[in-house]
């Protein structure tokens, strides 16, 4: 048996450059071994003996490798009812104003960018259901996309394991999910209605730009993995897909301050959001 290939300095830089340009994510020096270990099985499957060969395979998208690369390097950590204070704050403090100025009257359009297996997008829908009495008469649509096609497929199937439900109280688990074998739960169809999942890439606007702009964009705990160049592109792209006055919500430790002149910070109760400034 051959020895495992080793990731050289040059290969690390090249792969990082490619991943940052195509997906936005960057692997700092201390995560070099992480990148190597994520790609190693793929090299074995393709019977490639050097990471440089894999770089060429992905860079030139031979046999559609770009999509597989996205699956390998993206972080899939997500769960239902994660950091719901921010979602609650949106419905509590901003929804009436958003509704009054919606891009399409009578409709609120939300986007979950970098949705992984759909936990956040579905959580948005579940939280909206509990809050929607206050804004009855509006239709809520939730679009969600991720660069990892396999995760998008999981989101569409909506079957989850215990990790995804670790913050879901037992009572809510019973109400919203149907058991499917050992340690698997399927979100009931009723609660999946109104959510649409597709493959898209935050750093490639054409993959998720809608015909009608969104009122709210959620992109939480995704940008922390992005390179600086990709952050700039992401901020620009979110500004493109949001209507003036629309809100961008990021994770608690993320910020686009200094990255774009097209947003202003606003306070939503205990949370911070970024409001799209008019053209």
């Amino acid at each position, binding site marked *: 048996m051959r020895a495992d290939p080793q990731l050289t300095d040059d290969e690390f830089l090249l792969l990082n450059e490619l991943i940052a340009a195509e997906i936005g994510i960057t692997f700092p020096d201390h995560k070099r071994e992480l990148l190597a270990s994520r790609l190693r099985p793929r090299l074995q499957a393709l*019977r490639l003996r050097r990471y440089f060969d894999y770089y060429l395979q992905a860079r030139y998208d031979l046999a559609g490798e770009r999509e597989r690369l996205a699956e390998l390097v993206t972080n899939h950590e997500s769960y239902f009812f994660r950091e719901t204070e921010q979602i609650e704050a949106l419905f509590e403090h901003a929804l009436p104003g958003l509704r009054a100025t919606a891009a399409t009257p009578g409709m609120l359009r939300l986007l979950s960018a970098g949705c992984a297996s759909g936990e956040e997008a579905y959580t948005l829908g579940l939280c909206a259901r509990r809050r929607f009495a206050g804004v009855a008469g509006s239709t809520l649509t939730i679009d969600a996309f991720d660069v990892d096609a396999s995760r998008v497929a999981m989101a569409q199937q909506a079957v989850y394991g215990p990790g995804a439900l670790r913050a879901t109280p037992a009572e809510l688990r019973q109400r919203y999910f149907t058991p499917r074998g050992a340690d698997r739960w399927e979100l009931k169809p009723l609660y999946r209605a109104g959510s649409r999942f597709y493959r898209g890439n935050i750093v490639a606007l054409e993959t998720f730009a809608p015909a009608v702009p969104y009122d709210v964009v959620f992109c939480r705990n995704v940008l922390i993995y992005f390179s600086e160049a990709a952050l700039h592109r992401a901020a620009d792209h979110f500004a493109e897909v949001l209507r003036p006055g629309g809100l961008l919500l990021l994770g608690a430790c993320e910020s686009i301050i200094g990255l774009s*002149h097209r947003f202003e910070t*606003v306070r*939503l109760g205990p949370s911070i959001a970024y409001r799209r400034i008019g053209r």
Partner: protein
Amino acid sequence: MSAAPLPLPSEISWDGAMRLLEALPAMPLAERGAQVEMLVRNSSPGVRERVLRLGANLLPEERLAEHLRNDHDAVLRNAGLEMLKLRGARSFPLAVRLLADPEPDVVLQAVLLLDHLRDPRALEALRGVLAHPDLNVAQAAILAIGRLGDARSIPDLLPFLAADPWLQMAAVQALGDLRSRRAVADLARLLGDPVVGAIAAEALARIGGVSACRALIAFWIGQAGQLDDAALLGLLAHGLEGLPRAAVPADRPAIGRILAALRDRLAAAAPEVRAAAARCILALGPSDGDEPALAVLAAVAEEGEDARLPSVLRRRPDLAGALLRRPGTAAAWGMQLAALFPRRVAPADVLAALGGAAALSAAVRFLGRVPAAQAPAGLGPAVLRLYLELPAERRAEIVPLLRRFRVAVRGALAAVAEPPAAAAALAPAPAAPAEPVADPVDRVVLAALLGGTGGSGGSPRAVAAALERLPLAGRLAAIVQLAAHRPVMRALPWDAWLREAPEAHAAAAAEAAAASRLCELLPLLRALPPRLAEPALLRAFAELADGDAVPWLLEVLETVAVPRVRPELRPLVIESLGRIGGAAARRALAAAALDRTAESRLAYRALAACAEEEDAPLFRAAVTHSDWYVRLACAEVLGRFAAPQDVPALARLAADPVPAVAHRALSCLEG
């Protein structure tokens, strides 16, 4: 909803800064200095990091020392310190000189610089400022001394445990860094101190040893309920896990009280407390708390989806069997423990847990140490089943086991069923087959891997014959799995296959040639028409460094790897030419480097791999290329030949804003 608009930045835009950074290597030195001092004010961390690296290599030392003295411009002052840090050991003499500066802020910067450099020679100089009248300086010096790790400094630091709280905190931390056993009693007395108690606990955990652990236990027992359990128990677990096993306190009545208190914490609400209590219980050695502690530890790990073997279990090989009998993460830990301590585990326990592939590598390591003659009953079927159930790309991981226990596995294979015939396969299948099946491809591959015994069906010729009889798709699948099996690959009728069905066999032949290093296949591969070029073929020529393949590759480059035919092959051809080298390859690569297509950078790299001295002018002319990857190739080639006229170009590259380029050029200049 209240709105607070963002301030508009007055600085150069991010795009502008990036363009300026790209242009910096081509600027005159003086202009670069001014641009560096402007760009360090940029709010972008990426721009700042790159420009600081540049300034560290570019600005003279006196200029950087002036920045340190600039108390009107904090940005420049901080940038000066950062650049001196980036200069590494070259900054040491300056830092020592600055310790005598009359300005306390400058002395403080010098101490911080020495702290960063961690040069052992700094100890004497730092001792000299321990009594500095400025508390910030003295505090930074104490911390820096601690991080130097020289035990001779302990007597200098002990008096500070009774000093001003600011210095006291620094001394506690430093003594912890120094792992000072002499300080344990003093630190233990500080555990109850509201200001430095938490730092003292951390220091004791870092110091470790029986006395430090006793101090932490005594304090925790005495103060239970009034403390941050998660932090203190975590530190205690850390300390206990660091004790030699023989040093764990053996005072059973006392241990009994501690265990009882720890077991209470297994039901704590916070997972950190539960996990820390479990670690402490397990670290204290075998007890009736083991089972509940294992259950808690596994449950907490499963919540975090972490299957790494906890350190505490490395101390407890006696638990391997119990772990292997548990499901999920615990079984994976058991497998890892079995691999670490093969003599402490019964093979039957491992076999029982072998079903899942999650801990496969640990299982392979463990079973790899079991002598073949002592293979436990059931091992052959278990290994075979694992092999057949694994996806093809992972099967190579257990090939060593197949070979080690070939007799047992061969016996098992004879008892395994063939898959159902095609017609029967159309009938509804049971939900999950009770027994694995081995299809004809599996059987041929296994025959090769298990080998023959005295002319049986496992000899290379017999396997090759069986492989020939397989339908085309099965044959190719088997070849992929056996590509590195040189005897079998050599026995195959490649000549006939490549003549009769070249499209079908070209990739498999290339794969076999590269993996088994079958140079005799190269003429057959070179005889293929260039239109059949594909990645495996291009890589095979490169891996076998086939100089005779260069004309074939050049033809592919000109007729096949072109727009509207198969442009995706162009980078692979370029790469292969670079790995083979030779005059014709170098000429083609030089032309490709200059043609300004997307593959130009790859051509520079490929040419760098095989460049000769006469190629140096092309690289000399590219040292200000806008692509860092091309500049990296320049540094590599110009450094390799080290011609005197290339020193200015290398010096320019040594100040490159991309660290990889700068490091490569610097190492060439220094080497």
